């Protein structure tokens, strides 16, 4: 026997109570795992944002267009090192429920700008620039639909139509690309803007937004002011912001996920903390006499404190780790169906590590009061011998 066995035996002396407490903790950490993973997925854009990248959108909303003519005018602003433009395609494959993240871009400049996020093979790079009807598809999207380079794929848009009234475009997959950094999402399709612009029936020469890299972070403010000043009082006034702020605003369309996570997890934790804490206090109080006996045998107050804390931490881990397992299972199950909306949804190791840390903190908080009470317990009082 050792202290760990003693702790385990104490914990499971009332099996039903221990199991109910573990289930409570399991639920709390399952909620934490799932919501934290969603929050991470929603904010992945912010995580991958680099400080020297800015985004220029319509001042009214980023859903409003900008003229393509802005592209050259912004490119000429002092301090702009690289620039590209994006146009939201609103695509789907075969059926509207097969939603695709697809943009029309300026191929050469887009690849230059995103070279730090993605890996492009020389063949894919050349083909995407060369082929007017070619699309470049990210590795995850290729995998999801079982596509391969050279495939002809009909892609429809729920926004745009062709001049012949058709909503479908026939594209050739000319290449694929993979992520250079973990946060970079490859569940995306890019098509050439020129082909898209020529064939669509309306919205000609308009784009969704501009994305640019400045010569240095120090130049950001000056470039921002120059761009927004240049288009002030025009029919298409602009707002220039950091890529991080833009991605955050994009994610905010789905609500303030971080706040929801904090509120839900916080409420669940406080509730379960009180339940488990109260139960731990009762559990230790029931054992007053036994703690007195242990002290009589020579167990020091410090050792008793460590044993009670060890019990509450063990309880938190026994409940919390399966909770993380449940979260992993849930995320794995829903990941494929939500890939288009939250492509980077995953229970990342750092979230799991944070959860384990939280379990230990949870165990310490719930066990601290009963542990201190046990440590300070007077033997004579505990044994009812006064």
């Amino acid at each position, binding site marked *: 026997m050792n202290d760990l066995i003693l702790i385990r035996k104490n914990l499971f002396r009332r099996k039903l109570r221990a199991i109910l407490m573990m289930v409570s903790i399991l639920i709390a950490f399952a909620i934490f795992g799932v919501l934290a993973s969603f929050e991470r997925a929603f904010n992945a854009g912010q995580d991958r944002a680099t400080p020297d990248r800015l985004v220029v959108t319509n001042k009214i909303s980023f859903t409003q267009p900008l003229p393509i003519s802005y592209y050259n005018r912004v490119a000429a602003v002092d301090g702009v090192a690289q620039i590209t433009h994006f146009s939201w395609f609103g695509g789907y494959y075969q059926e509207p429920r097969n939603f695709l993240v697809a943009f029309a871009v300026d191929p050469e400049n887009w690849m230059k700008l995103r070279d730090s996020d993605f890996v492009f093979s020389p063949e894919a790079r050349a083909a995407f620039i060369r082929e007017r009807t070619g699309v470049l598809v990210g590795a995850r999207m290729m995998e999801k639909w079982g596509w391969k380079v050279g495939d002809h794929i009909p892609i429809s848009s729920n926004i745009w139509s062709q001049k012949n009234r058709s909503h479908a475009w026939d594209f050739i997959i000319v290449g694929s690309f993979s992520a250079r950094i973990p946060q970079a999402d490859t569940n995306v399709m890019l098509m050439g803007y020129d082909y898209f612009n020529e064939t669509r029936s309306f919205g000609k020469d308009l784009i969704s937004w501009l994305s640019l890299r400045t010569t240095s972070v120090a130049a950001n403010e000056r470039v921002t002011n120059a761009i927004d000043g240049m288009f002030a009082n025009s029919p298409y006034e602009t707002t220039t912001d950091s890529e991080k702020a833009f991605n955050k605003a994009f994610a905010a369309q789905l609500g303030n996920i971080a706040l929801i996570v904090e509120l839900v997890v916080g409420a669940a934790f406080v509730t379960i903390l009180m339940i488990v804490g109260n139960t731990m206090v009762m559990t230790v109080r029931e054992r007053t006499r036994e703690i007195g006996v242990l002290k009589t045998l*020579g167990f020091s107050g410090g050792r008793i404190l460590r044993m009670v804390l060890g019990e509450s931490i063990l309880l938190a881990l026994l409940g919390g780790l399966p909770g993380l397992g449940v979260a992993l299972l849930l995320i794995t199950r829903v990941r494929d169906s939500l890939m288009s909306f939250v492509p980077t949804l995953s229970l990342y190791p750092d979230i799991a590590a944070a959860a384990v840390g939280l379990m230990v903190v949870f165990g310490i908080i719930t066990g601290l009061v009963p542990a201190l009470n046990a440590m300070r317990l007077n033997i004579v009082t505990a044994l009812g011998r006064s």
Partner: protein
Amino acid sequence: MLSPTDPMIDIVDLCKRFTKGKETITIFDGLNLAIPRGDFVAVMGPSGSGKTTLLNLLGGIDRSDAGGIEVAGERLDRLSESELSRWRASHIGFIFQFYNLMPMLTAAQNVELPLLLTRLGRKERRQRVETALGVVGLADRVKHYPKEMSGGQQQRVAIARAIVSDPALLLCDEPTGDLDRATADEVLSILQVLNRDLGKTIVMVTHDPAAAQYAKRSLHLDKGHFIEKELAA
């Protein structure tokens, strides 16, 4: 270091008071007592005479207000709480009226508890546990839980737990108070063997004159003072 001629217990001018609300109750006021090594003393007396308090003081689980208590060569009134814990672990074996075994541990695990405070290896701990349970005649009840044993068997496990770390002094608080006569006699016989054959000094608080017969001598405590009676061994 305790020499063979030194007393196991030496109490000089011991004072102990309790405060209950605004009232102060004096339990001992200048108590003196010397118990030699290897003695087996029964402490008797009416309720409230201070028997249990004396046992608590001798075991270092309660503090005196004045006077000196020297047990096994150590001045208890000069030790800190942590020093007292360590001292108890190596010098004192407690036996309670209601056994006070851990219900979720087997007999062997209950007996092993004091050894967790030592540096003994698992194998040596197991040997000592087997020996202690053998001494009390429970070698075949190693894996039994307290609820699976009779009161007498539980008290014998408690005795094994008290002697497993080989303490010099056993303090027994009404060890047979919860047992029938026959079982009580078995338990008292074990205590007698521990005293006679293994040289353990035993101080036993009891209300039972028949139990006191097993001791070498009996001390009657009344209003904080002793009246000694010699008994036939």
